[in-house]
């Protein structure tokens, strides 16, 4: 079995130490960062993602795999920089102002990381101004907004408006989600996409960056 396959399998099993070991070996063997990333780490996450979609594994299995992937990325980072390998996209993520719910947002974060995105997590109770500042600072492809309350979902619209007011709206795609949020609401506030769950949010995000490329 090649090191790339071993990396992929160790990620699927969530074995971070093994992932790092196999990456070290692959680097010594002269495998490129791009190969290790795409055919090792992301291949593992992708295969596990399919199993998750088919209800064969649970979220904890995916999260543990994402931890292994993150450890692997740390190991691979110097080589990625030297080969100028970039993440497939950048996302700024947060739960909107007045809302302290973070489980859904964290699930989305892990799914995005597992799909090769670089994620800046602003946390919970995040103001529209903080989203604007984070977009200026990180220049993401996507802004992802979470809200779980009927009385806070309107804050997603505030973020859209704030990005417009600061001339940033056309530079990012805006995704919204959360229990009370709907496609209709997404359309009303002028966001780009509504994601019904964490898995579909990652697929949506990928479609945005692929389309951009």
């Amino acid at each position, binding site marked *: 079995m090649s090191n790339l396959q071993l990396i992929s399998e160790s990620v699927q099993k969530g074995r971070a130490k093994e992932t790092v070991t196999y990456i070290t070996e692959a680097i010594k063997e002269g495998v490129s960062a791009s190969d290790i990333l795409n055919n090792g780490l992301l291949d593992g996450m992708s295969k596990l993602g399919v199993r998750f979609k088919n209800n*064969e594994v*649970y*979220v904890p299995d995916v999260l543990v795999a994402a931890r292994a992937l993150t450890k692997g990325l740390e190991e691979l980072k110097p080589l990625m920089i030297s080969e100028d390998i970039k993440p497939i996209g950048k996302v700024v993520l947060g739960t909107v102002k*007045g809302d*302290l719910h*973070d489980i859904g947002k964290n699930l989305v974060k892990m799914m995005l990381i597992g799909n090769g995105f670089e994620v800046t997590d602003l946390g919970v109770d995040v103001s529209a101004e903080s989203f604007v500042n984070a977009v200026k600072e990180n220049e993401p492809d996507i802004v992802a907004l979470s809200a779980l309350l*009927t*009385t806070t979902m*309107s804050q997603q619209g505030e973020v859209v408006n704030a990005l417009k007011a600061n001339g940033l709206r056309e530079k990012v795609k805006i995704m919204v989600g959360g229990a009370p949020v709907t496609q209709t609401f997404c359309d009303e506030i002028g966001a780009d996409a509504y994601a019904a*769950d964490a898995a579909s949010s990652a697929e949506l995000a990928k479609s945005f960056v692929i389309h951009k490329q």
Partner: protein
Amino acid sequence: MRIFNTTTYDSLEDFVYSKAKNPVILKNGMVIGGGMLYPEINFTLPTMTINKETMPQILGIYKEIATGICQRAHELHVPGFVAEIETLPPMTFNPQWGIDVCSTVADVLNSYSEKYGYKASVRITPNDIREGDDLEHMWHGRHWDSILNTFEGCAKNGAELLAIESVGGKEVHDEAVMFCDISKSIFALSVLGCKDMGKLWTEIVRIADSTGTIASGDTACGFANTAMVLADRNYIPKTFAAVVRVVSAIRSLVAIECGAKGPHKDCGYEGVFVKAISGIPISMEGKASACAHLSPVGNVASCLADLWSNESIQHIKLLGGMAPTVCFEQLAYDCRLMNEASSKGNDKALFLRDCLADSDSLYDPQAYVLRPDVVLDISKQIMKEKTYYDRAKRGAIATVGILRKAYDERTLKLDDKELDWMDRIYDEIEDMPKTEQELTELMIPLCEKLNPEKYDLI
């Protein structure tokens, strides 16, 4: 401090809906747990922003909600009901807003009660705002003061039942649920949660005593219901959610130890264990809570209910009227049927209770652990231990054993990956430290979001 060493119930024959060993009598004479099942309606605002400018509109909406419910209660000959107001976060941060909402609803209920002669009472549940980076400490500071001020103000302005869904330990439990980490879950509930409950409920009972109101109960909604919702989406194993439900009972019982009298709040299904142990009446929610979330316990949840609730419903227009009014009607009919069965004799009530249990328990471990026979069994096992931590471990191990046996006897359906997780959960509990102190020392470095200073742990 009340200490429970045994279950209050010993036999399944008197462990049934509408009857509690220690009923609660309200000022209007309504007896909860005295043989009559009453509806408890809960509602929330439609999509809107809450601020100083919108508060007059918000009060108008609450008045409209309460009026619709009261009118429907009259139309359906409902003998009595409880209306629960769960404040939204801004209404706890600004206690006067919550107090105004409470007063508005209570005024409508009082007016209709006088006019039509039924009994109606308000339960206030301030949103527990002790989360976020700006929280100074769990038991002092702005957040703490706002919660207690909301309680006190509402108690003086129409609320008779005081309740909360407290969040002590939730920052740890959120991660425990995502990773299905049972050790962390037990730490969050039986160490952090119980410690917080002791502090919080001592204060709530003091407020209740000083205002002539009733300290009722505290559900682990943010813990066990979070697990349930994730399990229902197939994100985490259902068996994990079932175990968390049982462990949450140890935490929720602390309110009763501190002097709360019930009715226990609706939205955490652990109330059945609290009833078995303490004998207080409980509110439960089931099929009518489909308006808020999927649950696998729509029928079995009513087996032991003394109030029958709907979780929460948005004030939106349906063909039959505004949604809270429609939902209230559904609750009223459920209660009418169950009270009719009781009126025909205890054996008929038990028959209905068992039908309700049997109709759900085959399909989901979360429903199975709510069966009255299982509740009594697990409660007795929990009471064999003295400390919260030991009770949590005992309850969790007992639950896994009972679920495994039910699966083997084909009285519970589980898929293969659930079985694997049951073994994992069991093994992890067996490996947990012997004492709470050891667990705490082990956990503090592992819990990224826990600030131990806020719990006086260091």
